[in-house]
C-alpha cells in the first residue's frame, strides 16, 4: 500500500462510518447523533485545552448560548417570545413546515455567530488568566451563564422553552438531525486538520510550550487564542442549537448549561483519547460515549461508579491518552525517527540513571 493511500484511509474510514451508520443501524440513529455531538465537544475543547494548553472548564457556555439564541430566533421570527415562554400562559403554537425550516436555518447561523461573538468578548476578559485561574474563571462563566438565563423571564427562566416540533415523520427527524450533526462535526474535523498542519498549529503548540517565549518570537498569542476559541465557540453554538431542537425542551441548568455533565465530559473525552492530537478526541469521545451508553443500561445503579473508575484509570495509567500511549509505544509508525545505533554512539548506556550519566559526562569533559 502506498503512503498516500495509507494516510487518507483513516479519514475516508471516518467519513464512511458516519455515512453508513444510520443505514446499517437505523434504530440507533439518535445515539449516533449524540456520538457525533460528543466528538464535536471533544474536538472543540482540544483546540485550546490540548493544542494551546489552556484548560477551559466553561466551553459548555457556548453550547448553551447557541441553544438559547437559536430558540429565541426560531420563535421570535413568528411569535412574541415573552408570551410564548410565559411560565403558565402556555400558548399552544403551531409552526408550519416552512416556518420551522426557515426558523431553524436562521437560528443555526445566528447561534454560531452569536456564540462566536460571545467568545471573543469573553476571551478579551479571561485570556489574561493562566493555568488553574483560567480553568476556574471559565467555569465561573459557564455556571453564571446558566444562573443568569434561569433568572431571565423573557426566555422562560427556569421553566424552559418547548421548541417547535419537527413537522415530518419521527424517523425522518432522527435522520435529519443526524445528517446535520455529522456534517457539522466532519467540517470541523477537516478544518482542524488543515489548520493544525499549518502556521496556526505551530503557533498554538508554541503557546502551549512557553507562551512568553512564543510572544518573544513575535507570535501574536492573543490573536491565536482568540481565533482558536472563536472556532470552538462557533461550532459549539451550532451544536447547541441542534441539540436543543433534538431534545425538544430546553431549560438553563440541566439542558443548556450542563456544566458538571457535558462540560466535564468534553475534558474527560480529550484526556482519554489523547489531548493535543487530531485523532485523540475522536477516539476518546467514541469510547467514552459507548462506555457510558453500555454501563447506563447494564450497570444500572453502578453507572456513575463505573464512569468514575474509567476516568481514574485513564488519568492514572494513560496520562497521555490512548493516542499518546500508542505514539510512545510505536513512535516509528508516527514518523518519529528513533535510530538506536545513532543513539548508542552518542549515549552508550541508555539504562544508566540521569545523575550517573551527568557525573560520567562531567568526568569525561574534565
Amino acid at each position, binding site marked *: 500500500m502506498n503512503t498516500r493511500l*495509507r*494516510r487518507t*484511509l*483513516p479519514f475516508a*474510514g471516518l467519513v464512511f*462510518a458516519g455515512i453508513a451508520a444510520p443505514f*446499517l*443501524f437505523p*434504530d*440507533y440513529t*439518535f*445515539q449516533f447523533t*449524540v456520538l457525533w455531538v460528543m466528538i464535536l465537544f471533544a474536538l472543540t475543547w482540544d483546540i485550546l485545552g490540548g493544542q494551546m494548553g489552556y484548560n477551559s472548564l466553561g466551553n459548555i457556555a457556548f453550547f448553551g448560548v447557541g441553544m438559547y439564541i437559536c430558540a429565541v430566533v426560531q420563535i421570535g421570527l413568528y411569535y412574541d417570545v415573552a408570551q410564548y415562554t410565559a*411560565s*403558565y400562559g*402556555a*400558548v*399552544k403554537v403551531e409552526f408550519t413546515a416552512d416556518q420551522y425550516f426557515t426558523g431553524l436555518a436562521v437560528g443555526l447561523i445566528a447561534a454560531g455567530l452569536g456564540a462566536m461573538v460571545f467568545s471573543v468578548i469573553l476571551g478579551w476578559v479571561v485570556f489574561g488568566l493562566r493555568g488553574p485561574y483560567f480553568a476556574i474563571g471559565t467555569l465561573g462563566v459557564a455556571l453564571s451563564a*446558566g444562573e443568569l438565563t*434561569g*433568572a431571565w423571564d423573557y426566555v422562560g*427562566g*427556569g*421553566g*424552559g422553552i*418547548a421548541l417547535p*416540533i*419537527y413537522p415530518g415523520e*419521527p424517523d425522518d427527524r*432522527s435522520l435529519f438531525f443526524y445528517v446535520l450533526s455529522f456534517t457539522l462535526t466532519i467540517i470541523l474535523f477537516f478544518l482542524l486538520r488543515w489548520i493544525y498542519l499549518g502556521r496556526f498549529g505551530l503557533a498554538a503548540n508554541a503557546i502551549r510550550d512557553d507562551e512568553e517565549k512564543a510572544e518573544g518570537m513575535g507570535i501574536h498569542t492573543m490573536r491565536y487564542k482568540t481565533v482558536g476559541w472563536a472556532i470552538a465557540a462557533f461550532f459549539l453554538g451550532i451544536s447547541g442549537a441542534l441539540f436543543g431542537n433534538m*431534545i*425538544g*425542551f430546553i*431549560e438553563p*441548568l*440541566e*439542558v443548556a448549561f*450542563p456544566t458538571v*455533565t*457535558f462540560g466535564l465530559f468534553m475534558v474527560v473525552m480529550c484526556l482519554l483519547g489523547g489531548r493535543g492530537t487530531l*485523532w485523540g478526541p*475522536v*477516539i476518546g469521545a*467514541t*469510547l467514552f460515549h*459507548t462506555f457510558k*451508553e*453500555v454501563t*447506563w*443500561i447494564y450497570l*444500572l*445503579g453502578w*453507572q*456513575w461508579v463505573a464512569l468514575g473508575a474509567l476516568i481514574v484509570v485513564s488519568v492514572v495509567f494513560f496520562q497521555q491518552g*490512548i*493516542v499518546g500511549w*500508542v505514539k510512545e509505544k*510505536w513512535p516509528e*509508525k*508516527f514518523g518519529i525517527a528513533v535510530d538506536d545505533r545513532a543513539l548508542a554512539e552518542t549515549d552508550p548506556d541508555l539504562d544508566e540513571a540521569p545523575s550517573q550519566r551527568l557525573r560520567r559526562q562531567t568526568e569525561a569533559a574534565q
Partner: protein
Amino acid sequence: MSKHFKFLTALAFGVAAAGLVAAGPAHAKVEGDTIIIGSAISFTGKYSTNGIHASNGYDLGVKRINEMGGVKVGGKMYKLKIKYYDDESTPLRTAQLAERLIKQDGIKFILGPYSSATTKAMAPITEKYKIPMVEAEGASRSLFTQGYKYLFAVLSTSEQYLASSIALAAEMAKKAGKKPSDVRVAMAFENDPFSLDVRAGVIDDIKKFGMKIVIDDKLPRDLADMSATLTKVKALKPDLLVISGHSKGAATAARQIKELKIDVPMIAITHCEAAKIVKKFGAATNDFLCPTQWAETLSYKGKYFGTAAEYDKLFKATYDGYRNVPYQAAQASAAVLVWKDAFERANSFDTEKLRQALSETNMKTFYGDIRFAPGGNNIAKPMVLRQIQDGKFNVVAPSKWASHKVNWPRKVPGM
C-alpha cells in the same frame, strides 16, 4: 499516520457499533405472556428520592396486578413488566432514553418519568411516535395545554398545590380580626418548571386576596442551602412562608427552619412526606402544611388495592423505611392500574385502540377517581392540604375532606 490509526479508528467504531447494538436486545412490546412497559425515571440526581418512590409505586402496582392474575387481553392472561432506565434527573437524558425505549427496545407503552421537566422532554417524542404514555409525576399545567393526544396524567396539576394554603391564611387572618390583605407572604421556589408553576398558582391567589409578597426568592441550583432566604424571613416576620423544591428542597427547608429557629405562624411546603421530614427532624416540623395528591385517610376505594388505608398498609409492608407513604408512590401505582384497565377495555395491544380506551378511562381507585380531560390531566380528583400534627399528617383543607382542625398559629415545642 499509519496502520495504528486505522486500526484504532476501526476499533473505536467497531466497539461503538457493537456496544450500542449489544446494549439493546430488541424487546418486543409483548414477549410471550408478558407485556413490557417502558419507563425512564430518576434513580440518580436531584430528583432521585422521588424517582425511587415512584418506581416503588410502579413496582407495587405491577406486583399486585400480577398476583391477581395479570391482564386479560384477547382471552389470554398476560403479566406486566417494566423496563427501567435512569434519566439522571435531567431532560437531556430523558429525550435520549425515550428514543431508546421506543426505537431500540420496541416499547409501545410508556409510564412517565418523575418531574415536570423530564415529562416535558418525553411528551413531544411519545406524541411523535404515537406511543401512549400514562404519567403520574409531571404536574405542570403547560403539559396539558399543548394538545397532546397520547399523554395521560393521573394527578392534579401543579398550580393547585399550594393555592389552598393561601385561602387558609386568609381565613385565619379573618379569624384573628385582620383583613386578608394584611397578610404578608414569603415565598421560595426552586427554579424548575414544576415549582414555577406552583408559584404561578400561588401568585394568582395572593392577588385575589390582595396580600403582600415580602420575599420572592429562588432556591439555589443544588437546593442544599436556603439560609439566605430564611435569614430574611427572620428579619421580616411574614405571616405565611411557602416553599416548593421537590424532596431535596423540602428536606433542606425543614432542616434549616429547625436550625435557624424560624418562627412563622404558617408554613406550607410541598413534598413533605416524600422527603420524610417528620422522621428526620421530628417535632421541629410540627404544624407544617403539606399539600398532597393523596392521603391514606381519604375515603377512596378501588378494585385492586382496596381502600387508601389498605394501600398504605401494603406499601409499608412491602418497602422498608416508610413512616408515611408518599403520594408520589401512590399515584405511580394508580398509573399502572390505568394501563391495566385500558388494556382490558381495548382488548388489544394496538396503540390507537389503547389511546382511545385511555381517553375514555373512568375509574374508581384507592388513589381517587380517574377521568381525563381532553388535555390529558385528571379532573376527577382534588388536591388536599394536610398538617403535621404531633408527627401525623392530618387533612385540614379543603373542608369537604378535612378530618382535623388546622392549628394556627403553629406551635413548636421548645420554641
